[in-house]
């Protein structure tokens, strides 16, 4: 910590290092971020436009019902309920299984067990949510999560 004791190293020097360092690393970061935000939309792939619309609608339902407040999703979110980014694989690529689970939640929960609400989704909404979850399972996550249990 000699540097702090040196008389010749003044507060003004330190301030200039701060502004210089900040600008340099901010620009470096923005450069990387720009590269990423150009690459990402190119990775989007949908079988057809109907699916594309369903996935978009599924994302709206996902947000409007705050699923992330209990579940983790690609590891972000809450840690109270199972990871859903790979639910499609966990349910052996069975969309109906996912829909059945969401549809069958009891209104009053399950005694003493962590419970998921009954959202009373219409069939169309269930389809959209399931397509959204399937879509998320196809994101290239560098092989995360380590096992299908999430």
């Amino acid at each position, binding site marked *: 910590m000699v540097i702090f004791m040196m008389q010749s190293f003044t507060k003004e020097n330190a301030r200039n290092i701060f502004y210089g360092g900040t600008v340099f*690393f901010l620009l470096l970061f923005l450069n990387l971020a720009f590269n990423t935000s150009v690459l*990402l939309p190119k990775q989007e792939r949908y079988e057809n436009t109907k699916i594309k619309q369903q996935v978009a609608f599924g994302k*709206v339902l996902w947000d409007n019902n705050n699923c992330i407040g209990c579940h983790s999703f690609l590891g972000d979110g809450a840690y109270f309920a*199972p990871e859903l980014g790979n639910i499609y694989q966990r349910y052996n690529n069975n969309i109906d299984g996912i829909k059945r689970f969401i549809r069958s939640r009891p209104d009053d*929960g399950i005694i*003493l067990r962590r419970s998921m609400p009954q959202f009373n989704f219409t069939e169309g909404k269930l389809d959209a949510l399931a397509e959204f979850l399937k879509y998320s399972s196809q994101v290239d996550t560098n092989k995360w999560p380590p096992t299908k*249990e999430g």
Partner: protein
Amino acid sequence: MCLKYQTQSVAKPYFIASIILFAVQISFGLILGLQYVIGDFLFPELPFNIIRMAHTNTMIFGLLFGFMGAAYYIVPEEAETELLAPWLAWLIFGLFTITVIVTIASYLAIPYSQLVELTKDKLFPTMGREYMEQPTIVKLAISVLNLLFIINIWGTTLKGKKTGINSLIILGLFTSALLFLFSLYNPTNLVLNKFYWWWMAHFWFEAVWLLIISAMLAFVLIRITGINRDIVEKWLYIIATMIFVTGFISIGHHYYWIGAPKYWQWWGSAFSLMQPIPLFLIALFVFTMVRKRQIEHPNKAALLWVTGTAVIAFLGAGLWGLIHTLAPINYFTHGTQIEVAYTHIAIYGAYAMTIFMMISYAMPTLRNRKANNERAQVVEMWSFWLLTLSMVFATIFLTIAGVLQVYMQRYTDVPQPFMVVQERIAFFYWLREFVGVIFLIGFIVYVASFFVKQHRRLD
């Protein structure tokens, strides 16, 4: 009169609001902890996600009130002039308080999807994401109030003296308000959405708020150690440099597994490996200043908070962050109880404790005395230990839970389902709930310390 400038007194309602919100946050936290082990507790009226958003939002609002109070106290004294517009500070306080109460109450009063409809989220969808659950109109209101707040304190510095502490606290508060605007950006593309979601979360917690608390620490240290401003601010600028140099690109540690390009594993790991450096420097700074102090300030409780926050911020954010930040390790720990353990000690150590420190230093002067009486200080120090130790133990219990979870769910040859694993580690959740109650008791002791009077001496 103990205040240097009369208008510093607007800080008081902000500090009180911050303390009240902290109380509410703790109460919701205890409910969440109970729901972890008694799954259907309060179900279906108040499901976990609703209590969680009330808990995290009161945290954010409480910290914002704390930062604002700190700024109203610090900026005039540093600039050596009265606040630009004290009436505006009061107006912002009133409007912000109403906004917060209405927001939290609306979470609890109606199902979330109804709130979404009621506030016409469809017109401009922003709701439903972690930390960003507030209705769009609330987000706009907060942004406007933030802007007015910045104008008020920035205007104050324009008519007064310029100091390093003021420059950095205002830079921190301004960028914090700017980053909140990302809550209004909600792209449909899932990966892009996560990519920008982290701009608010990571840069708040791990960059610009650290700047704010460093300035707060420097302010208090100058006053309670009597050390020359030039030395303190030299440290402050070096710490701030390291915060930003390491803090920007380390956002990559959130991009390992969400579909972002793979190069983030290298950038994220390399830069967040260096992230403990600024936290280490903060600890070194605080201890060096305290050791070389020129005066003995009568406020011993504030001194305890200063040194405590330096230690816990380093261990909690720095060390506990470090252990799971490298990509190959984060592969196993991401999204487990390890993260819960670490976020609690990090936020408590870096932010809750600095706000307690600020209140501890400032509140006596706002109540017309240089320091609280000795008995009150002793009670406050008791609350320091109760709060801090119970949080440390909560961290330990949750870390054990996290390691077990990683092992059973992700590491063995026969991985168990999430819900099975949760039941098997429930014992540690009970321990967490127990220390949570101690934390609440510590908090009650803290509040009580404001009302403790000196014994009348009989001799």
